[in-house]
C-alpha cells in the first residue's frame, strides 16, 4: 500500500506548523522524518493518522483519501506507536489484543487471541505475556507497543520517536525489529527520529523538515555536512563506518 502525502498544510491558531508537505512512501520502505524540536515532526504524524485534520491537502492510502475511510477504517490500515505508553495495569497480552479492536465488533475471538500469541512469540515477548504493562522496562514497553501496532495488521506504520527513552542496546533492538518487520510485512513506515545516526543507519530515506516545510528528502548516503548544518545549525563531519554514514559533531 502506497502512502501519498499531497501538499498538506496545518495551522494552529493561524500559526503555520506544516506548509505544503508532499512525499510518498512505498511498501517495504522506511522514511525517517528529521528536524529540530518544533519542526513539525509529531504534527506531521498526527496529520497522517487522522488525529489532526490538515487545513489543506490530503493523505491518500493506495489512492483513497483518508477522510473517506473514517476513524475505524484508518485504524484497519494504519497503526501508530507513541513515544511512550501510559502506565496501564493491563497485561501485555491484553494490550496487544487491543490492536485487534478495529477488526471486530464484539469481544475477541479465539482467532484474535491466537493471532496475538503468534505475534508475541515472533517478537520474543512470550515470557512477558501475563506481566502488567506498567511493570515493564522502557525497551520492553516499546516492543509491546510495536507488537500491539502489528496486531492491527496495518499496511502503514507510524512511529513517533520510538527510541527516545531507551538506552543504546534497546535503541538498537527496537530499530532492528522495526527494520526487519518493515521488510517482512512490506509495511510503509514513517518514523519521526531525533537521533540522526539512528535515522541514517536504519531508514531508506530521510525527510528533513525545517519550519514546517520539507527542506530535503535524501537517501542516507546523500546526507552531507551542509544539509545537517542548514537544518540543525551545527557544524558536523559526515564519515562512513562500512556502508553506514555517521554524523560527528565538530
Amino acid at each position: 500500500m502506497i502512502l501519498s502525502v499531497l501538499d498538506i498544510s496545518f495551522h494552529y491558531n493561524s500559526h503555520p506548523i506544516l506548509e505544503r508537505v508532499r512525499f510518498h512512501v512505498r511498501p517495504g520502505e522506511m522514511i525517517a522524518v528529521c528536524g529540530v524540536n518544533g519542526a513539525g515532526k509529531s504534527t506531521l504524524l498526527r496529520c497522517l493518522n487522522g488525529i489532526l485534520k490538515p487545513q489543506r491537502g490530503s493523505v491518500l492510502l493506495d489512492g483513497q483519501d483518508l477522510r473517506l475511510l473514517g476513524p475505524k477504517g484508518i485504524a484497519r490500515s494504519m497503526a501508530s506507536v507513541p513515544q511512550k505508553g501510559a502506565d496501564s495495569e493491563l497485561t501485555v497480552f491484553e494490550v496487544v489484543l487491543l490492536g485487534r479492536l478495529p477488526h471486530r465488533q464484539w469481544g475477541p475471538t479465539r482467532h484474535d487471541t491466537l493471532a496475538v500469541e503468534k505475534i508475541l512469540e515472533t517478537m520474543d515477548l512470550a515470557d512477558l505475556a501475563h506481566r502488567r504493562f506498567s511493570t515493564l522496562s522502557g525497551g520492553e514497553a516499546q516492543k509491546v507497543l510495536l507488537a500491539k501496532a502489528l496486531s492491527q495488521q496495518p499496511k502503514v506504520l507510524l512511529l513517533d520517536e520510538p527510541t527516545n527513552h531507551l538506552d543504546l542496546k534497546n535503541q538498537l533492538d527496537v530499530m532492528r525489529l522495526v527494520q526487519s518487520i518493515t521488510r517482512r510485512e512490506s509495511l510503509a513506515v514513517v518514523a519521526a527520529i531525533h537521533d540522526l545516526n539512528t535515522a541514517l543507519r536504519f531508514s531508506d530515506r530521510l525527510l528533513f523538515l525545517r519550519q514546517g516545510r520539507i527542506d530535503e528528502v535524501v537517501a542516507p548516503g546523500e546526507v552531507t555536512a551542509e544539509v545537517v548544518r542548514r537544518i540543525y545549525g551545527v557544524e558536523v563531519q559526515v564519515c562512513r563506518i562500512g556502508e553506514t554514514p555517521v554524523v560527528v559533531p565538530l
Partner: protein
Amino acid sequence: MSRGLAETFWRNAKKKQKLLFGLAATTAVVAVAALSFGTYAMSPIHVLKSLLRMAEETRVVVVWNIRLPRIAAGLSVGAGLALAGLFIQTLLRNPLGSPSTLGISQGAAFGASCVIVLFHAGPFGTALAAFCGSLGATVLIVILGRLRGLTPEAVILAGVALSSLFGAGTVLLQVLSDETRLAMAVAWSFGDVGRSNWPQIGWLSLSVTCLAGVGYWWRWHLNALDMGEEPAKNLGISVESLRWQGLILAALVSALATAFHGVIAFVGLIAPHAARRIVGADHRFLVPVSAVLGAALLLLADTFSRLILGTGSFPVGVVTSFLGAPLFLSLLLKRRA
C-alpha cells in the same frame, strides 16, 4: 512452538468469572443475613417466609416495608456510585475521579439545602432540587469541558472548584436558616439509605442497570482508553464522544442516587480501586466487580451503622467516610509498596 498463551488468557478469564460469581453470591448471602439482623431479630427461615409473605404480619411488614427497601437501596446506590466512579476515573484518566470530585454530590447538597431553607420543601421537593443541583453541576462541567476544550485534568480541577463553590453556598444557606431548617438540611446532607421507597429504588436500579450495560458494551473501548487518549484514537475510537456520553450517564446515576439518599462519600472512589486490585484493569471484569464491591461495601456499612451503632438511623454516609478514608489510604500505601 506454542506456549498456550491464548489458552492461558481464556483460562484466566474463566477464573475471574468464577471470582465475580463468588463475590456476587457472598453479597447476596450478606444481604439475606442483613435482613435477619436488627432490633426485631429474625431467623433466616423467618426472613425467607416473610419474603414469600408466609410469615406472621409483623414480620412481613418489617421485612417488606423496612429492611428490604433499605437493603435494596443500599445495593443499588452502592453499585451505582461505584460504576459512576469507575466511569469517571477511566474516562478522565484520573484515579481521583468520583461523583464527589466532580462536584456532583455537592451540587445535590446545595440544591437540597436551597429548597429546605428557602422554601421549606418536603421530601419530594428536596429530592427534586437535589437532582437539579446534581444535573446543574454536571451541565456546568460538560459545558466548560466542551466549549473550552478542557483536558481531563482540568475537568477534575474544575470539579474541585465547583465542589468548593457549592460547599460554600450550602454553608451560607445553613448560616441563614433557623434551627429547625438547619437540622433538616444537615440531616439530609448525611447520606442515608433508610429513606427510600420502592419507586425510587426502581428508578435507581433501572439507571444502574443501564450504566452497567453501557460499561460492559464499552469494555474494550475503556481498556483502550486505559492506554492513553491518543492510542485509543489510533484504534479508531471516538474518544471525545465516548468521554462525554459516559460522563453524562455517570452523572445521571450519581444525581439520582444523591437526590434520593443524600451525600454518600467514598464508595465511588474506593470500590473501583479495590476492584482493580482484585481483577486488574481489564474492564470486562472491572465493570461488574466494581458494581458488586460497591453494593457490598454500602450494604456492610449500612448494616454496621444499623447494628453496631444500634440506633437504626445512623446515617451510612458518616460510616462510609469513616471507613473509606483509612481504607483508601491503605490501598494507596499498598500500591506504592
